[in-house]
């Protein structure tokens, strides 16, 4: 089973931060408070879309073929992600 990276606190639903990093090769551990990278804020489906979009050189037509969806529905999906990026930037500025 693929483990999902939790993004929200299961108790208060606040955004989670990275507390500890671990090297599985030499057992080094780094302790501190780090923000999650912006891409981690997206769902797995959205991350997959972004990666495919980059691989398709930003072509919505090619994305429509890959996803077996119509052009406008792929564009709407992208617009949803753009809106989410804007919200993230806005919340980061606050």
């Amino acid at each position, binding site marked *: 089973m693929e483990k999902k990276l939790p993004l929200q606190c299961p108790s208060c639903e606040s955004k989670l931060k990275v507390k500890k990093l671990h090297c599985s090769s030499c057992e080094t551990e780094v302790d501190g408070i780090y923000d999650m990278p912006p891409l981690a804020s997206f769902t797995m489906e959205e991350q997959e879309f972004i990666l495919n979009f980059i691989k398709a050189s930003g072509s919505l037509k090619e994305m429509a073929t890959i996803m*077996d*969806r*119509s*052009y*406008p*529905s792929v*564009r*709407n999906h992208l*617009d949803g992600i753009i809106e989410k990026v804007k919200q993230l930037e806005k919340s980061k500025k606050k």
Partner: protein
Amino acid sequence: MKTSVVKLLFRPFEYVSEYKALTIGIVAIALSGLLNVFSGTHFDGVLDVHFGDSKSYSYLFMLEGVINWISFAVLLFVAGKIFSSSSIRFIDVFGTIAMARWPLFIVSVFSLLIPHQAVDEFIMAKALNVNAPVTIEMYEIILFIVLTLVMILVTVWVIILMYRAYSVSCNLKGAKGVWSFIVALLIAEVLSKYFIYLLA
């Protein structure tokens, strides 16, 4: 499997758009017009279906579908440009709206297969308060009711499809999407009726 059939019937524009949708729509509109010539069925408005006039010119039956499609698509395109923040394409709106009207072809087929001329004449005579030129049988009334039910169900289906077409092609949902669709539909109904009246 069941879900995909339901999706294709009610949310086809997640999968089909652009020239494919446009082709399906234009073929359905043309075939409907052709069948309507023989059955005397008029699509004289974006949401109107009327039976019982085979005296009109053939070209009128063919043009009605085109006028209904274009008048509504133009208004939805304008509404999309005003209300949507997405980049809307002409081909998406016109293609999906054309395809959304394909179920009306079913009405055209039923109207051709079900004999309804006697009931049409009877209703017209009653409406004009003159003696009915024909008597109608019970089976003719039942068939006319079936035809009317098909017409109502298909009209509801077409409205759902046209809203989905607008929603996907213009990326509009919620209250903004619903209200702009209703206003455009009402204006298109008036405009299409006017244009058809000019041609008749």
